[in-house]
């Protein structure tokens, strides 16, 4: 128990969580502190490239674990089916109309890469390793949820969806970058990594701090703008869904034989909600859905919850399941 609290405390007092909190407080207090859009996009490109690279280098170093095929399959299945569960929970807990509920559900099937990074950072600081190829699983989990969401919305509403946003989904920049960097890391291996670790490893955690400061600012602004949509049922969903999703992800990871760290990561991916790829696809494919709802929920409720408490819980779940 006290170990659990120590772990939670260690996470809450990490520079990255505090940077997020600073951004959140600054935005809620209406400070004019802002991060330029180009810088935010640049930080995000850096993070995607760095974690893709590291995952690939890991695979080059340790060889492919037999479970990678299973892992990718599990990712696709989780991403496809979690929105169904999310939709159900939403309809039970809140009075959200079907189209908005479908749009929100899509976000929770997909993943948030910065939540993934925060989890890896926690694992690293407690000395738990994980399968490098889970980066590729993260990439395959980004998109399938969108299709489920559109199917749900189509059931509810026969007319007027924007057609399948195939192009928007399949060549989404963040997926391409993550997979591309993963392949590069795999090709160059540890020797190639050594050449570039002065940029992709040494400053990584500090750069992550600035990125989380930005996430805090954006989340805070979103909360201020979208607060009126956050009825209690929705907030409840925004906290319950990651817990349920995380548990399902953890069990799945344990069933396919992941390490303790791997189980925690798959739980984190399942628990996290997309704030890049899915909202953009929804804006085209489901223009009737209100972005203030899905963005506020994913970024203003679930992301902070996962960052502050969720990832610690998923690690505990993983330890408990694997006995690690």
């Amino acid at each position, binding site marked *: 128990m006290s170990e659990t609290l120590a772990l939670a405390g260690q996470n809450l007092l990490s520079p990255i969580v505090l940077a997020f909190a600073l951004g959140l407080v600054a935005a809620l207090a209406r400070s004019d502190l*802002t*991060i*330029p*859009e180009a810088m*935010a*996009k640049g*930080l*995000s490109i850096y993070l995607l490239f760095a974690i893709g690279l590291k995952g690939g280098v890991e695979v080059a170093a340790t060889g492919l674990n037999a479970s990678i095929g299973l892992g990718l399959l599990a990712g696709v299945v989780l991403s496809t089916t979690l929105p169904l569960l999310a939709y159900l929970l939403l309809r039970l807990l809140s009075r959200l109309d079907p189209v908005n509920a479908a749009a929100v559900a899509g976000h929770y099937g997909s993943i948030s890469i910065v939540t993934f990074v925060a989890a890896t950072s926690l694992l690293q600081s407690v000395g738990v390793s994980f399968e490098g190829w889970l980066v590729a699983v993260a990439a395959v989990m980004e998109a399938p949820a969108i299709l489920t969401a559109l199917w749900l919305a189509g059931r509810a509403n026969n007319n*007027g969806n*924007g057609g399948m946003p195939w*192009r*928007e989904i399949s060549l989404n920049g963040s997926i391409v970058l993550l997979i591309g960097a993963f392949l590069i890391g795999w090709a160059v291996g540890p020797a190639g990594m050594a050449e570039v670790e002065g940029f992709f490893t040494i400053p990584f955690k500090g750069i992550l701090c600035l990125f989380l400061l*930005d996430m805090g*600012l*954006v989340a805070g*602004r979103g909360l201020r*703008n*979208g607060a009126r949509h956050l009825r209690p049922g929705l907030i409840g969903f925004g906290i319950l869904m990651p817990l349920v999703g995380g548990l399902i992800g953890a069990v799945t990871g344990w069933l396919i034989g992941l390490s303790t760290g791997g189980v925690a990561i798959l739980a984190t991916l399942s628990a996290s909600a997309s*704030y*890049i*790829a899915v*909202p*953009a*696809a*929804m*804006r*085209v494919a489901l*223009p009737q859905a*209100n*972005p*203030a709802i899905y*963005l506020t929920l994913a970024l203003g409720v679930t992301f902070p919850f996962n960052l502050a408490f969720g990832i610690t819980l998923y690690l505990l779940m993983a330890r408990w399941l694997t006995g690690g």
Partner: protein
Amino acid sequence: METHRAKRIEIMIETPALRRVRRALEQAGVRGYSILPVQGGYGRTGSWSGEGEVSIASNMDLVWCIVAEARAEAVVDAVFSVVDRQIGIVTISDCEVVRRDRF
């Protein structure tokens, strides 16, 4: 300087739908258009700002397009078929241009 009457079509559109508007304009046969960044705004869904945003989901862009008067209506129709379902705004206004051959 001799000038010629033309129409300025300005389309405020969600960035995720920009690609579709561009395709519609090109298929409608416009000779050119330009895209201006928009950094924030306010509307029925509240305020938004591009600052700090990694996602383009809440961003808008302004498409600025000069067309010959004769083509204007066809262009607006083509664009509107895309914009209709989005929250975009299509405005048309008069202007004079210096070189007719460009539009």
